[in-house]
């Protein structure tokens, strides 16, 4: 977790003043911006994605990440770190807790509103599709927050893609194995050549409108059954 404690004066760079490095040396090299970096609270139950998003945000903001904080404890955390922006998984049950900050209370003099409200439904659709929800302090300029939200959306998408790819790779591998084994059985028990075995499977796949993997699995099941019966028959 990144500590949000280092104070930043206006006129400093947009580079994260992390608690280890301090901001003085870096501020001279960064482009001057008019305001202090925004404080971001990132709430995500998915630690891997949280790390990805945090990595994307730290160059432009002070990021505090929390994985398993809910209800009263979450509200206390918010009042302690006083974030300008809250970024979270749009399906998190904690959203309802955050929404309660929309009404002004003694503990919460600045209500927090959904970021996308001023931006029209395209922007909202974008965020929802990526699974991102963002809340900002009421009155904060959208221009300042936009790059952070865009980064979060991109990182959420990136994680999604990575996971999809991983799943696809696993599926592909499993499919290839099944096809190879089915081919082997056809060659062994039906005297087919490798090409014949493959093209007969492909024909079945086209005729039945099923993926090659499903055809291969059916062949494995049926031939497996027949072979078992045959073995039993031989023994009797």
């Amino acid at each position, binding site marked *: 977790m990144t500590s949000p404690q280092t104070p930043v004066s206006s006129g400093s760079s947009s580079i994260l003043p992390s608690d280890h490095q301090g901001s003085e040396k870096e501020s001279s090299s960064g482009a001057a911006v008019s305001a202090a970096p925004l404080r971001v609270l990132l709430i995500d139950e998915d630690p891997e994605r949280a790390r990805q998003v945090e990595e994307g945000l730290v160059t432009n903001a002070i990021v505090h990440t929390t994985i398993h904080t809910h*209800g*009263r*404890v979450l509200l206390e955390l918010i009042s302690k770190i006083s974030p300008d922006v809250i970024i979270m998984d749009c399906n998190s049950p904690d959203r*309802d*807790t955050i929404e309660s900050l929309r*009404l002004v*209370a003694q503990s919460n003099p600045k209500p927090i509103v959904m970021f996308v*409200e001023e931006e029209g439904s395209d922007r909202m659709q974008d965020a929802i599709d990526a699974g991102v929800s963002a809340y900002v302090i009421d009155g904060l300029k959208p221009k300042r927050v936009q790059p952070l939200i865009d980064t979060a959306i991109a990182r959420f998408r990136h994680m999604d893609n990575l996971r999809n790819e991983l799943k696809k790779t696993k599926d592909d591998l499993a499919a290839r194995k099944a096809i190879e084994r089915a081919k082997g059985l056809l060659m062994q028990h039906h005297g087919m050549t490798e090409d014949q075995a493959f093209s007969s499977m492909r024909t079945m796949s086209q005729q039945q409108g099923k993926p090659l993997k499903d055809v291969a699995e059916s062949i494995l099941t049926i031939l497996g059954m027949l072979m078992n019966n045959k073995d039993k028959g031989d023994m009797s």
Partner: protein
Amino acid sequence: MTVQLTLGFAQLTDCAPLVVAKEKGVFATHGLDVSLKRFASWAAMRDALGTGAIDGAHMLSPMVVASAAGIGPFPGEFTTAFTLNLNGNAITVSTAVFEAMASMAPETITRRPLSAYALKMLIERRKEDGKEPLTFAHVYPHSMHALELRYWLAAAGIDPAKDLNLVVVPPALMVDALAAGQIDGYCVGEPWNNAAVVAGIGRTLITSGEIWSNGPEKVLAVRDGWANENHETHLKLIAALTESCAWLDDMDNRLTAAQIISTPEYVDAPFDEIVGSLTGRNRQTGGELRVDLPDFNVFHRYAANFPWRSHAKWILSQMIRWGEAPDDIDTRIVANQAFRPEVYCEAVKGLGIPCPSTDEKMEGVHSHAWLLKDATEPVAMGNDLFMDRRVFDPTNIDGYISGFSIRNQTSRLGASDTNQISSLAK
């Protein structure tokens, strides 16, 4: 021709009308192919409805009123023509708070409806002892839970803004938060009160039906624009849900309903934990552990599905009371936008279901069953009392609100909501 629709629902026992309509084939007989999508937060369901990802939602009735008033995302965009159920929530406190209340005011703890008077004494004692204030939770800023909890507290002289902390906790985490001592009590729907009692960590003090008898809980929320463009589909949806609610109203069907909704794709909770909510048997309230409350969930009788504009106005009156809506808001316009009884009546005309001929009634005047004659056929109604015996006259909301000594004197609305409300009013 079959119309495809997606409806959102929350993991609570009062999702039953939607689930039953799907699983018993009621939607199908009305030519609707409905997919149900579960949401883990009200905010996510609201966004899905607002952006058109879903066509309708099992939504907290005050969320629709808030939208109609111009508060929050999607100002003025939601409406309802169907109340899904009445009552169904309860207030539960930790065993420690219950025992402290019982020892401080034993004479009040045995009376039903259980007043928060003993809690007020406990709060004062804690103040004298220099202890930190108690924390109570509800589920969403614009919810009947929040309004009922505040009403109950304030009726005993407890000011929710000054005497304790109010926080929002997701329902599924309530019991854990109570067990961990992060909160001292909460107002939530089922099965989450029952769960605390069964686990031995809490006691249920009062049910929402005892705070206000037969108040509206969830509604079928739709987008205003969708309702206009899909009027026939909307009518079919209401007709199907009316049939489903009528079926649910028969106590003999509630066990079957409990079995259907307990499955993993719906409430995903053991049958034993949710059956009490639907049958009203072996409920807990008033600190007692086994009470029969047949009206704990009302799905159809008492003209339950008719969206009374007086209900919308009561919700709005409480929002004004707590600084969540401006006191000069036009309550008539907001109620007309939020609740659409005329659409409901059009939808059920062919089903032989009687429909009230008026869209408002006095609330808090009937202490027992009564007959509503101002309807296409007389309707047997339930009582509509408030726990403090106040009367709500929908034509005199200002007078009603000024009768409360405990209220927020200043607005709690932020700048963006204030702007939204005034631009919607234009």
